[in-house]
């Protein structure tokens, strides 16, 4: 199972740890905390497996490996998926 960024290019603005994101496909403006925003940013660069996405987010958050709870990560990705910002795909990524 991999995660992929969905839809058209997003517009970003960050102020004091809050991330404002405009989603052209839905005309919605979202407010995200740092964790959710970083997950989304990571995936904008390209598809990742769930494990990889979590690892990258931890690095971006300056957190120790495994520090980002699976529950918190799951909640964030489900919410992003419901908003149509990312997609779950039943694929695997060929190893480099």
């Amino acid at each position: 199972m991999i995660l992929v960024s969905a839809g058209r290019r997003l517009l970003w603005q960050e102020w004091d740890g809050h991330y404002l994101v405009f989603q052209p496909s839905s005309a919605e403006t979202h407010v995200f905390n740092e964790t959710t925003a970083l997950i989304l940013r990571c995936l904008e660069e390209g598809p990742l497996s769930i494990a990889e996405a979590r690892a990258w987010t931890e690095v971006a958050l300056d957190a120790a490996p495994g520090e980002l709870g699976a529950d918190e990560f799951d909640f964030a990705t489900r919410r992003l998926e419901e908003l149509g910002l990312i997609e779950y795909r039943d694929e695997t990524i060929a190893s480099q």
Partner: protein
Amino acid sequence: MIIGDLSRQECQEILAGKGLGIQFGPFNLRIRSNLKSFAAVAYQLYEPYPLLTAAVISDFHVDMNSPPGLRRWLRPQACFAIDGHSPFAPYNLEHAFPALEWGINWCVATRAHHLLMLHSAVVERNGQAILFPAWPGHGKSTLCTALVHSGWRLLSDEFGLVRPEDGMLLPLPRLISLKNDSIDVIRHFRPEAIIGPSFQATRKGTVAHVRPPVDSIQRAQEPARPRCFVFPRWIAGAPFILEAMPKSQAFLMVATNAFNYEVLDEISFRLVIDMVNSCDCYSLRYSNLDEAMAGLDELSRSFDA
């Protein structure tokens, strides 16, 4: 030509006939009314506003009339209509004037989607505009009235009209409506302010309208650049305190209170981001109007520095 160039009788006849053409900032209105009481108040309060000739395009065609038929005699009422449609239930006859003012607000808010419409008072000094967004805590209109009678120009009491092409604020210097206690507060603070009659027991309590200074009306075609957001809150006994507000919070307050933020999609997002980025954002607590005037004067001086 201004409304005051007509005689009172002429004004009443025109209202009851082909309709009075009057310019409010970017909008040309044609107002018709067969109500004498309405005509009297309109003549007093609209006196300095530009009178339109027949050769212009009117944007809104509004009527404030007694409804036809039996109801006219049973219970005196006034009906607001635009282009022949009445979007609201009839009002009591004596509330005809405030009803028209609200009706005009409604017309702007539901139609002027070529602009981004923030819900905000806007005043200007030295080419720099301060926006006072509407947010829980009230006092916006009272503060705005005080400012425009203390050397500031009124752009608008309700609408922050942002022109998408360049982010400039367009003036809409209409009457400022005050409610309940604020009416006396302003009478006391600035006895020279021109305030129309008080309308009791409206849907919003007691309401009266302040006519802005003539200068604001005469400069209605002069846009201003936004410089600062101030979110005001009147709190009894509070000293004047300006506190920097986090930009993310300012953005959310402005966007969620706007009349049509959603409609302009990406343009709204970019415009509000740009405004919040280029403006200082403050929350304000105050209780004393004189203190507030002095404090905001000082703030405005700091812009030039």
